[in-house]
């Protein structure tokens, strides 16, 4: 049968499908408007108390339609119209221009109105004097948006996606366009909006008036930029302190990372796998724990200090508190990160190129100097900038070890909490810190974006890497051995320290700290979690467990859009999604407090703000994992799926996701672990009800309760070690018998 006229030119009746989708969306919108509370609920949505407390009529809990029907909050009424507008598109085919127009009007109009009313009307009625003058006093007010509003917003985003897709954007695929819309909306609300709010906070005086001079006063203050330490005996500005710390730590970790990379690949060292295991350490260790161990060693009553005092009669001093201590702790903490970057770089230098150099009469040292080293340089710069950003952003170690050496991240914290409570100063400091880290981030992307030499030679050649020249090998081994020794001592200290009554003063062994923190008991009601740490421990597990899959999902969808789709503005999109990597946790913490303390989005003191903070802090990790593993999948798999009639969603769910299973698992576990160890942003966002393990430990440290802090840290480390080990097992099992080959 070759009669072509009997066949339609396309496979599925696309019109019928999109009409069904509109019906589903209208249904979702109806549920959102009719069943879910419109505003945020003070006692928490998930507690369910609101169900028995006047729902659905009470205006605190009422869904949108109930509010309007009772004549309350009438400014919300247009939203119903926008949500229902696509009813008119039901009988239209998606190729008709009016179909796209209706959906776009509904989506953009709905979101626009939602934002407009949200920012115009707040807890005290009109938010702006001009509005009050124009319309008169409102006599009403509203709180933050709740789940009803959230769901309707999601529907509006999909409306926009469908409208744009009908106009042919990105191949006309609703899934892709909507996914882009969601990622943009989320990144906009939870990264850019808080940062903008913070910038605004920096120019606002305490009485709420705006003034640029306030900002310039704080921004150029002597405390930040003073150079007194060069001439007189006063401390320099915190910005210089941070910068010095960042440069020293960046340089030192890069050098150490290179040493380890060389040992692992170029020395015939047989235990490379053990070295790689070192890279797990910073992942499972809360950032300030190394600092605690340093205090146990070199503090006033530290082991080494007392030993030296006994042996040589040296008077114990507080020398370790300050730059030396922070540098030491950060070097121990971040060297494995540099190692992880540099091992790829060193391995990426093809042995064939070096062998070619050797056949051209270059001896081993010349080869290293003229071939290997220049090829590794971009990677080294990358590792340096990473170390710089990590060091600048670190909060835990400077807090524990800083002494009088103030850095930006801790200064931000002390500006907000404690006596000062100067939000404008915190914002100004945060801006300085942000400028530094973003500068490094830009530099990294601009200089190194296209400069990676690794893999330029095309196909890998199975040659073994040559050995280092001998005069390099000896010092490299020595340094690596010393670092490993220090790491062993540090972790030994941490485990041992949890069992010591009072470090340096009363060295009797005890399990008191563990029973104080994690004691359980029995009473008539059954098992009782007596220990003081249980609350924060369970909260941490819960928050991390909620955040991890969401982080992985958002990261992978973003990675899919970046790797597999072409659309206008993709570079800006990529930049926006990776940006949060360069925003220090303290900055995120401050900006979240400033942005989400008032309607329209009111999140402070909830568990949700912690979850959201983790999602957007760790999103770049998921994106990178997704990009790396998606690059392994041949693009023709997607294309084959498309030519077989699958749309982007079907391809994503049936082909890409199953093949990415190991990457998904890794992203989930990694986000989980990072959520458990994070401190910098968290410390601003915890509340009495939602306290996290790390901020609880920092609280103990501030009360000089080192024993409990260290015992708790040890437990966290072992919990996370178990989680990571379980992941490794799962991945091994999952990949068996399913070779990945395109």
């Amino acid at each position: 049968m070759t009669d072509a006229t009997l066949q339609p030119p396309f496979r599925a009746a696309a019109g019928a499908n999109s009409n069904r989708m509109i019906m589903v969306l209208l249904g979702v919108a109806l549920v959102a408007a009719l069943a879910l509370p419109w505003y945020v609920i003070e006692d928490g949505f998930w507690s369910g108390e609101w169900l028995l407390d006047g729902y659905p009529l009470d205006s605190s809990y009422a869904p949108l339609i109930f509010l309007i029907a009772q004549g309350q909050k009438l400014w919300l009424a247009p939203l119903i119209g926008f949500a229902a507008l696509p009813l008119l598109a039901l009988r239209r085919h998606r190729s008709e221009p009016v179909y796209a127009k209706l959906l776009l009007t509904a989506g953009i109009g709905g979101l626009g109105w939602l934002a407009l009313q949200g920012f115009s009307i707040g807890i005290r009625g009109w938010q702006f004097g001009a509005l009050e003058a124009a319309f008169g006093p409102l006599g009403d007010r509203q709180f933050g948006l709740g789940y009803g509003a959230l769901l309707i917003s999601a529907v509006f985003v999909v409306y926009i996606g469908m409208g744009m897709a009908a106009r042919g954007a990105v191949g006309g695929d609703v899934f892709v366009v909507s996914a882009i819309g969601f990622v943009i909306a989320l990144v906009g609300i939870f990264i850019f909006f808080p940062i903008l709010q913070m910038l605004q906070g920096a120019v606002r005086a305490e009485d709420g008036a705006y003034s640029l001079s306030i900002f310039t006063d704080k921004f150029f203050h002597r405390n930040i930029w003073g150079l007194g330490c060069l001439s007189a005996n006063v401390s320099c500005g915190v910005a210089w302190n941070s910068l010095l710390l960042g440069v020293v730590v960046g340089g030192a970790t890069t050098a150490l990372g290179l040493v380890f990379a060389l040992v692992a690949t170029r020395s015939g060292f047989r235990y490379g796998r053990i070295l790689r295991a070192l890279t797990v350490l910073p992942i499972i260790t809360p950032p300030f724990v190394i600092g605690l161990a340093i205090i146990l060693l070199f503090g006033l009553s530290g082991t080494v200090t007392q030993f030296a005092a006994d042996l040589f009669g040296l008077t114990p001093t507080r020398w370790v508190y300050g730059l030396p201590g922070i540098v030491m702790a950060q070097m121990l903490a971040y060297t494995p990160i540099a190692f992880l970057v540099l091992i790829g770089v060193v391995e990426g230098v093809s042995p064939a190129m070096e062998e070619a150099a050797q056949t051209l009469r270059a001896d081993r040292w010349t080869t290293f100097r003229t071939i290997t080293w220049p090829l590794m340089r971009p990677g080294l710069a990358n590792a340096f900038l990473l170390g710089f950003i990590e060091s600048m952003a670190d909060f835990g170690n400077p807090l524990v070890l800083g002494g009088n050496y103030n850095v930006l991240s801790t200064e931000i914290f002390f500006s907000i909490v404690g006596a000062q409570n100067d939000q404008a100063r915190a914002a100004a400091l945060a801006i300085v810190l942000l400028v530094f880290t973003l500068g490094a981030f830009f530099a990294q992307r601009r200089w190194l974006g296209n400069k990676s030499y690794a893999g330029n030679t095309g196909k890998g050649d199975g040659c073994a890497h040559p050995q280092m020249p001998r005069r390099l090998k000896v010092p490299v081994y020595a340094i690596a051995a010393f670092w490993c020794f220090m790491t062993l001592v540090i972790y030994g200290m941490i485990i041992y320290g949890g069992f010591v009554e009072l470090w340096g003063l009363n060295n009797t062994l005890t399990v008191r700290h563990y029973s104080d923190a994690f004691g359980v008991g029995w009473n008539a009601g059954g098992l009782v979690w007596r220990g003081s740490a249980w609350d924060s421990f369970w909260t941490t597990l819960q928050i991390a467990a909620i955040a991890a899959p969401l982080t992985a999902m958002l990261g992978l969808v973003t990675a899919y859009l970046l790797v597999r789709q072409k659309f206008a503005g993709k570079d800006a999109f990529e930049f926006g999604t990776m940006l949060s990597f360069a925003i220090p946790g303290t900055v995120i913490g401050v900006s979240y407090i400033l942005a989400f303390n008032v309607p329209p989005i009111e999140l402070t003191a909830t568990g949700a703000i912690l979850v959201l903070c983790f999602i957007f802090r760790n999103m770049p990790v998921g994106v990178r994992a997704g990009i790396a593993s998606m690059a392994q999948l041949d693009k023709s798999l997607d294309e084959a799926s498309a030519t077989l009639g699958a749309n982007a969603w079907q391809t994503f769910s049936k082909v890409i996701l199953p093949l990415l299973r190991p990457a998904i698992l890794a992203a989930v576990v990694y986000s989980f672990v990072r959520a458990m160890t994070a401190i910098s942003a968290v410390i601003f966002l915890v509340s009495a009800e939602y306290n996290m393990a790390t901020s609880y430990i920092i609280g103990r440290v501030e009360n000089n309760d080192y024993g409990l802090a260290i015992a708790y840290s040890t437990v966290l480390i072992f919990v996370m070690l178990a989680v990571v080990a379980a992941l490794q097992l799962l991945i091994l099992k999952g990949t068996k018998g399913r070779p990945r080959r395109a």
Partner: protein
Amino acid sequence: MTGTRIKSNAASVVFEGVSKIYGGSVTAVDDVSLTIEAGTLVTLLGPSGCGKTTTLRMIAGLEQVSKGRILIGGQDVTALPATDRDVSMVFQSYALFPHMSVGENVSYGLKLSGHDKAETAARMRAGLELVGLAGYDERLPSELSGGQQQRVAVARALVLEPQVLLFDEPLSNLDAKLRRQVREEIREIQQDLGLTVVYVTHDQEEALAVSDRIIVMRQARIAQMGTPRDLYEAPRNAFVADFIGEANLIDCEITARAGDSASVVIGSITLELDARGLGVGAAKLAVRPNRISLSRRARKNDMAVTIIKTTYVGNHMEYRVAAEFGELFVISSVVDQPLETGANVFLSFADTGPVLLPPAE
């Protein structure tokens, strides 16, 4: 087996002034118009970067056209994405889904087209049987040889009974011996079912062997379209002459024309050849290496040449000879008494074979 058979819904493909421009400046396909009849196998042939793969991907809907229209079965599909076009494709890498069994791979498109379970299974079996892989449906792609994977890819595309079936260099990942066999199988299936097939390759021998028609592309444009014999025996320009089978391109002069016949002077000899629409003046002569004979003895209308290189390649001899107008490449089937390097011999052209071409492009 039971009633389910794979049918054909073959339809024609028409390009009307189609262009594809990447990033605003790189023109991959430049104002191409072509017609592919329903039920024929048409090859897109050309050197790498000529736009043949882009053309194929535009038929599939994997690339959107920048200008022009594409019609499949008389319907305008220009705006339809790959998902909605009734076109299937066999990829160079086969693109079998590694996490699905052979059966799941072949059923993938059937499920998405809304066939029920029984129908899907029946068609999947029929498809596998058609490519000679009945009973392999439980295997994973990684457990199959390269040739078998290729057949699975063909079955997966065939079972959808597409209006057009596309092949993107399907043989390039197979070893040389298997290539001949697989290309014959593809041709057989295409002819048995009466499919419309568009086939991309850079191998001119492969193109000559499988095609009803060949479209030779060069630098984003069509250089020539025609049957394999047309292209080989009557190339329209020097590029086609040289790309399809090798050719010696010799500068010559048309001195006189009488009807369809032209008198052509090359160095010291004169030939009478089909004028092919060329007038008096400079021209080029394309001569296949095997349409030149070398002899130790002088004959009428030949020229003296010197052999500068001799290569023995088993079933024939290859010579490079210096003539008064330049070097020529000659193939001789006389292997037993080869001519030696440096010998002065006499060269003559076969009566049919040399083709006149316009002087330059």
